[in-house]
Every structure is written in structure tokens, then in C-alpha cells.
């Protein structure tokens, strides 16, 4: 378990560090929203899922994409705008997808995929499939009406879905306190009759444990939905590769406890150093290959501009 966790955590952290490094040479001509510091949520949740379970998320998409098993090569190629990208270069960093691994997409408009996830869960029920859906979103999405409409419907239909709010305290530079009189997201959700709890401290074990319980319960239909508010923290700027403490909207000290409590280091310390080295070597190799793959891949040809507007029906 620990080595699985570690591989996933380390992989996400290192992929994003590489993205941040490469970003400076303008190979990635796309906004990037890094999850550095928040990886534990994606990993804790996705390790509790089966591969045919489905996840939806937002533009801050790298972590859940990778945690769910999304193809790394195709992700980096997508960021490079290459035809080998997971969306042929037509999505970009904010719209990662990997159907084969249950990553059903991500939206640049806050809140939109919550409703899509709910509809998908309805369909799974209707189709009598065993898989479930996870909807990832930030604390900013709570403010949007679609969040409430979606909760209401999911509760009404008792859908097999788990809502994961990654509460990193900020929507861009605006603190939750500036947006909610009562910063009690989980309580709002309970009023719909949905079991909801807050998980403090970016704690990967706790997240994994609680989500696993919910997944198990959802094995019986008509028992959903579930909701978790996972407290976490974004280390980097909202969009882009750098820090942002100079902006003054938050103090570096606010980050300190989260860095001390870094889940990557925490899990690293729990596994055998040799095993750990092996994992790290494998991941580094994979990352090197992925960036090489992206570099070497061609851009889409001109005709691709006009492909994929409509699907031809059979």
C-alpha cells in the first residue's frame, strides 16, 4: 500500500516539478495549474477506486489524471500541443482526458463537470454497471449554483457518486472567508441529506480510508452520494510555475505547516529506502521518456483544424 501511494505521490510531484522547470523555456504554451502540495487528495481518493471507476475534474487536472492512471506520455504531449497528446493537442492542459483509465475530462469553467459527473452516475445506475463516479472540484466551485443543483439531484436519485472538494482555501487569490459567511462546506452538503465530512490535514491515509468506506457502501446501489471536504494547500501560484507570496494575498508562513506535513516526504519515510530508490528511478525514467516523447512528437497537421467538429453517425 505504502509503496503504491508513494509511487503515485512521487510521480505527480516530480511530473509537475518537471513541468515547472520546462515551462521557462516556453515549450509548453498553455496555462498550467499545478497541484504541488495537494497530491495527497488525488492519490488518497484514486487508490480507493477501481480502474473502471470514473473521475471528472477541473483545470487543475494533472494530479487526478495521473492518480487515476492517466497516460503520462500523452499528458505531456498534450501540454506540448502535439498530435500524440491525449486530446491531439486540441484540449491543452485544462482538458486532460484518458477514457481507458476512467478520466472523463476536465473543464476550464469552474463547476461544470460536477453536473456532468452526476449525469454519468445516473447513467451507470441505469445501465446497471458496478462502477462509480468521483467528482473533483475546488472550494471555489461551492459558490456556483450548479454545485447545489447537482447535489440536490444526486441526493434525490441516490446516485453512486463521491464528491471531493479539494479545499485549498483559495479561489485564485480570494480566501474562502471572503466568499462564505460560514466556511462550513460539509455542513451545507449535509442539509441535502448527503453524508458529508471534512478531512483535515491533507492526510492521505485518512482520505484513503474514508473514501474506501464510501466506495464499499456504494457497492450496494441506492446508498449514495457521499461528500468529502479535503483540506489541503496549494504551494505554487494559482496558474504558472512559480511561487506567489510576493503578491501579498497570503503569507509564506501559511504554507509552512503544510510543507512540514508534506505527504510525499511522509510516505517516503515509511518505506524501505532501497524500494524507494527503485520507485524513484522508475518514475524518473518514465518522466524522462514522457518529455522526450512529447518533444519528438509532431504537431497536428493543418487538416486537423477541421476534424472532430461533429462525429459522423454510423
Amino acid at each position, binding site marked *: 500500500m505504502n509503496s503504491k501511494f508513494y509511487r503515485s505521490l512521487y510521480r505527480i510531484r516530480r511530473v509537475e516539478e518537471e513541468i515547472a522547470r520546462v515551462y521557462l523555456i516556453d515549450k509548453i504554451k498553455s496555462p498550467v495549474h499545478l497541484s504541488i502540495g495537494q497530491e495527497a487528495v488525488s492519490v488518497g481518493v484514486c487508490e480507493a477506486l477501481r480502474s473502471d471507476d470514473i473521475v471528472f475534474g477541473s483545470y487543475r487536472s494533472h494530479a487526478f489524471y495521473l492518480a487515476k492512471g492517466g497516460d503520462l506520455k500523452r499528458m505531456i504531449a498534450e501540454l506540448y500541443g502535439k498530435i500524440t497528446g491525449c486530446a491531439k493537442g486540441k484540449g491543452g492542459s485544462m482538458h486532460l482526458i484518458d477514457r481507458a483509465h476512467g478520466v472523463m475530462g476536465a473543464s476550464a469553467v469552474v463547476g461544470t*463537470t460536477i453536473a456532468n459527473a452526476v449525469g454519468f452516475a445516473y447513467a451507470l*445506475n441505469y445501465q446497471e454497471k458496478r462502477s462509480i463516479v468521483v467528482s473533483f472540484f475546488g472550494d471555489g466551485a461551492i459558490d456556483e449554483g450548479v454545485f447545489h443543483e447537482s447535489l440536490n439531484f444526486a441526493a434525490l436519485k441516490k446516485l453512486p457518486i463521491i464528491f471531493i472538494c479539494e479545499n485549498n482555501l483559495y479561489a485564485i487569490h480570494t480566501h474562502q472567508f471572503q466568499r462564505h459567511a460560514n466556511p462550513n462546506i460539509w455542513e451545507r452538503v449535509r442539509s441535502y441529506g448527503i453524508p458529508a465530512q471534512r478531512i483535515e490535514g491533507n492526510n492521505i491515509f485518512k482520505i484513503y480510508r474514508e473514501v474506501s468506506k464510501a466506495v464499499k457502501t456504494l457497492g450496494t446501489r441506492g446508498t449514495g452520494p457521499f461528500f468529502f471536504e479535503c483540506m489541503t494547500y496549494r504551494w505554487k501560484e494559482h496558474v504558472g510555475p512559480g511561487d506567489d507570496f510576493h503578491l501579498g494575498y497570503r503569507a509564506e508562513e501559511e504554507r509552512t505547516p503544510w510543507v512540514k506535513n508534506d505527504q510525499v516526504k511522509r510516505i517516503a519515510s515509511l518505506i524501505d529506502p532501497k524500494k524507494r530508490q527503485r520507485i524513484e528511478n522508475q518514475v524518473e525514467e518514465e518522466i524522462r521518456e514522457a518529455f522526450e516523447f512529447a518533444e519528438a512528437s509532431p504537431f497536428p497537421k493543418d487538416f486537423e483544424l477541421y476534424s472532430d467538429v461533429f462525429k459522423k453517425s454510423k
Partner: protein
Amino acid sequence: MKRKLLYVDAIREATEQEMKRDKSVIVFGLDVDDPKAIQGTTRGLVEKFGPNRVFGTPLSEDAMTGAAVGMALAGLRPIHVHIRMDFMMLAMNQIINVAAKSHYMYGGQVYLPLVIRSMIGKSWGQGAQHSQGLYSFFMHVPGLKVVAPTTPYDAKGCLIEAIRDDNPVIFVEHRMLHFQKGLVPRKQYVVSPGKARITAKGKDVTLVGISHMQLECIRAKLYLESVGISTEVIDPIWLSPLDIDTISKSTAKTGRLIVVDNDWISCGASSQIVADVTERLQGKREIRVHRMGYAAVTCPPTPPLEKLFYPDGPKIAQAAYRMIKDQKSNWLPRERKDLQEIEFKGPF
């Protein structure tokens, strides 16, 4: 082939037949399962197919449209119903930013076999917020198909086509067409994009009538007959993709084009059609063009103003008459009682 149905029953039959054919077709939306059954278009479906396939929803246009997208992603073929086009303004984010774009922005990996049915209101004080067309919004954005059938025959064929299409289709109904009667074959058939319908042959002027305005164009044609003007009338049926060829050809023949829309003119379907035909025929054939649509104001509910708000048979006839004979003519046919009820003939 001689069976006549109301438009609403044609919709109902198409839905039922497709639901029987394909278990992935489901119907949902506000009030689809209530006693009024969306003017009867969903009558009996919940009894036949059960409440998992046919269900009413909370008043949540945004999330329910988003849910329809999610269902389509999962392989269902949802038909989502709005009882007014106006309410779709609450669902624009999901339609414009998600539904229209998913196939393209995911590099063709996903597709959305989704139908959004919606209705345009008119008369009896519908007023500002229950009368809008607004389908030009959906014609503007790549990735959506738009259809506005006017006859019971086309209602059935287009709905079946829309259900089978693997892309999001905005299906525009008009409440004043709902109780029109016409021939409708029992079997399933499709009316596909790419072919506008010439509903009357003529040689002096081409009238394109969209949605309910098709009926007004047919009335206009009859008025014009009485003054010796021969009118070609076209129903585009599918607005996106639009069969501009048929309209262009007819205009090349008659030399005159009037597009009558069930919506405002500015940046509307009438502007699109007139601009397209102009670009195509310039340098080849000199033509005259004219756009008609809602008056450029909010729809007023009071009957005398509402009458001025909409194009109608006499006003359309007048515009054609002016174009052909004399721009300054005051000729305006008196409304004929016998033209109040027009039944669609066919089969086409």
C-alpha cells in the same frame, strides 16, 4: 400513408418508437412525467418505459443540462426537454461551453448523442420571457446541430434523426405548430440535415420561412397568388447544418430572396442566410434580398402590439410585392378567414 397526426403526437410517436428500438434513449426534464405531459408529447411514456427512463426533474436547468451531457458521455442518448427556449438561457454554459465543444476539445474521443427539445411560445400574453427564438445562438457556435421542423411529418423524422445523431442537437418546436395536423407515416423514418424542403414552387420570389414563419410564408404565397405573383417557399428544416444550396439555387432562379425568421433579425438566422446567399451569388446573378423577423423590441403581451411584433402572411406578402413591383406600394392584403387554419399536406 393516409394517417394524420398532430405535431405533438408525431413527437410522441417518434420518441416512443426510438425508445423501443434503443434502450439507451431516455427522456427527462421539468414536467415530462406530469399530467400535461409537455402538451402531450411525452404522454404515456413513463407508463411504458418506467420512471428510470422517463422522469421529471427539479427546477435546475443548468445542472440538468450538465447531467444530460454526463449521461451522453456514458453512452446514453438523453432527450432533455425545456418548455421554453427562454429557460435555456440558464443552461447556456453547459450547451455552449461543454456540449458544443467536448467532441473537438477531447480530440474526438468522446461524443454526445444528446437531444435538447425546446419550445417557442407565442400569443396569449407570453410576453417578454416566454416568446423568444434565440436559436441563432446555437447556430453561431460550432459543434451543435439545430433543427426547427414545422410539420408533423418533419417533427417525427427530424426527432428520430436527432436521436440517432451522435452529436448534440437543439430541437426547436413552436407552440403554435404543436396542434397542426398532417400526414405522418407509421413506420420510422428520418429527415436528415442537408436538404431544405421546397414547400411551394414558384418563379418570382423565394420566401424562406423558419419554424412557425413557414406557415406565414405559405399564407403569404396565397395572398400573392391573388395578385399574380408566383412564390417559391422553402422550409430549411435543419438550421445547422443549413442547406444553403437549395436556397441559393432558388434565389438564382427567382432573383429575389426574403427570409422570414421567428426571431430577431440582428445576428439572427435571417442575417446568416442573406449574407451566405449574397456571397454565393455575387458576380453571378443580381438579386434582391430582404430580412424579416421580430420587431427589434422586447415582445409585448398586449394583443395590438403583439400583432405588430410578428411578421405575418399579409406583411410578408407586402414585402414581396414591394420588392417585385414597387418599393413604395401600400398594398397590404386583408387577412383572409379561410387562411387561418392551414393544414400541412404531404407526404413530401
